[in-house]
């Protein structure tokens, strides 16, 4: 008798209805969440290689601004997919390619060849010519793109905005070497 009161026909249908909506909701939530997180899940793939131009565009011993079209683009990106980077040709096929983004908060750093420094206009971070930290709030050197020279063309691995949390620090050896040289008194 009490069973009938607990589970009427209409009560059962209502519960079934709630259950049905729950199942539909979960089934729809899967594509919704995957759509929403699409950009985050794609990030784990290896980045593509982009050509910056012939090595002869970059004179030895100098640092030049180069630009490239980001390899991962959407039709609505417009100019924002154009990216700048600083190319330092040490000698021969020895390069360093730095992101323009300051390792502090990402403002664009500018190269001053006279003083051999990169300076950031935002909070005053400064870097030496090899990208190592010189002064100011950055806790590390400039971000570097991996590069290779193929058939005389400088190619870098890029496609992602470098940020302090997503990019590993530049090679420690280059930083240490340059800093020591920098401290050597020239008149000694």
């Amino acid at each position, binding site marked *: 008798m009490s069973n009938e009161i607990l589970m009427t026909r209409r009560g059962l249908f209502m519960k079934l209805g709630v259950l049905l909506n729950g199942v539909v909701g979960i089934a729809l939530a899967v594509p919704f969440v995957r759509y929403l997180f699409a950009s985050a899940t794609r990030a784990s793939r290896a980045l593509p290689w982009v050509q910056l131009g012939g090595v002869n565009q970059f004179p030895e011993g100098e640092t030049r601004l180069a630009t490239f079209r*980001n390899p991962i683009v959407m039709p609505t990106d417009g100019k924002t997919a154009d990216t700048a980077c600083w190319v330092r040709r040490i000698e021969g096929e020895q390069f360093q390619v730095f992101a323009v983004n300051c390792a502090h908060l990402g403002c664009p750093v500018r190269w001053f060849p006279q003083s051999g420094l990169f300076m950031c206009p935002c909070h005053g971070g400064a870097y030496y010519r090899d990208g190592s930290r010189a002064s100011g709030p950055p806790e590390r050197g400039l971000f570097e793109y991996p590069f290779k020279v193929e058939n005389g063309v400088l190619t870098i691995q890029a496609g992602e905005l470098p940020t302090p949390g997503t990019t590993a620090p530049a090679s420690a050896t280059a930083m240490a070497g340059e800093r020591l040289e920098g401290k050597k008194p020239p008149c000694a």
Partner: protein
Amino acid sequence: MRLIAAIGEWLDYRLQLAAPIREAAEHPVPRNTASWWYVFGSAALTIFLLQLATGILLAMVYVPSAAEAWSSLQALNHQVALGWFIRALHGWGSNFMVAVVLLHMVQVFLFGAYKFPRELTWIVGVFLLLTTLGMAFTGQIMRFDQDAYWGLGIGASIASRVPVAGPMIVSMMLGGPIIAGATLSRFFTLHVFVIPGTLIALVCLHVLMVLKLGINEWPMPGRLVRRATYEREYHALTRRDGAPFVPYAIWKDLFFAAFIILAAAGCAWYFGPFGPTGQPDPTIIQTAPKPDYFFLWMYALLSLLPPSLETPALLIGPVVAIVALLLLPFLSGEGEKSWKRRPIAVLTVLLIAITLGTFTHLAGYAPWSPHMNAWSGDPVPDHMLKGTTALERQGALVFQGKQCRNCHALGESGGERGPRLDSVAVRLTEDQLIRQVIQGGGNMPAYGKNLSPAETTALVAFLKTLHPATQAPARDASREAVIGDGSGSSNRGSVAARGGAEP
């Protein structure tokens, strides 16, 4: 007239809204709350309505695409009739809204209005503040120019510092691997759908609670809030000394709301729209991005904090601040309401206001940012070169050419990142100058690799001339004792000859 009444009756027979609306409008409020101090909440709501109206108008022309947004803003400014005014009104409305919301919050805090039984009203208010700031930040992104682009980069850099989840948060925020089309679309969705929707829902909840719980009475020193008795006392007060909200109190709200809208419109008309600045083209790196007014204090904080404290402060600071605001009504839900007997509350407000004000003021001229063009744009003042030797003048050239000026001021111009050098020779001896230039330190880069010995000698010779005529340059007494008087560096003669030194 009879027709209007008939239509009204026809509608109300079906809607049945007239009675509850009349009841809400005429509910009794304590007589002394009909004060000019109680107008900020309604003013914030009025500006929000202005933002909704101007926002809808702007969305009719604005194109939320990274490729088109900037040119659609240009069209609004220059092509569409009065487009500039609607943009200006939306921009100034945003500034006024943040300001009025903050004023409202300070008033509520100082009048103890967050105490029992209005804790939830305060908590919803905290979320209203956060959504308002969220609107201000995402609105700055809608103005898709260089500041917006690099501002997003700063946001991404901050978000990336979150342990473990950082990279995922960044790609969620950007909608892709870089700041581009998907990023703008994402922020457009937030600015136009998600946050305003939340804001409307929260505003409704907030106003509903004000109606249900009654407006906070004017705080009297010594009249304490107790959970057991408060509501009985409040209702007794509104019965004894109450007046209907409409029209007794509302006229001040109406006057102030009109004044605020007029002020925003006046600013919009006089000052015009904000930007856009340069195109959001990441290959144009000659830019020094700055946030909008209400985030300037953060810009200052980020350059003044020691680097090691920055990440914890960025990630933990906001959490602590929000949690403190949310916990406030639970930590002091009873007791004294009057600011006259809450000195710590008053001091807290003053401290926060002065801190934010100071940071904002500093960010106005950003002494921590190098002046990128000072080396080529600001010459060494003439009087500093008068009567100098050829070597010292060569040093002045080195000083300019090596961009020292970008961080060091001479006379009235130059960067303020490093100390002014007008009287550096008083502070540092020749050897200390050489060491500082070559090795750097104390936030100065080392220049050893970028200066030849001849350049260093010339530069230091010039720096040694930088002292007031009445003050002798610093000297190293021990050196004279060891090497003997007169056999020091070759430059000393020139300084002494000009009467600047006291050997």
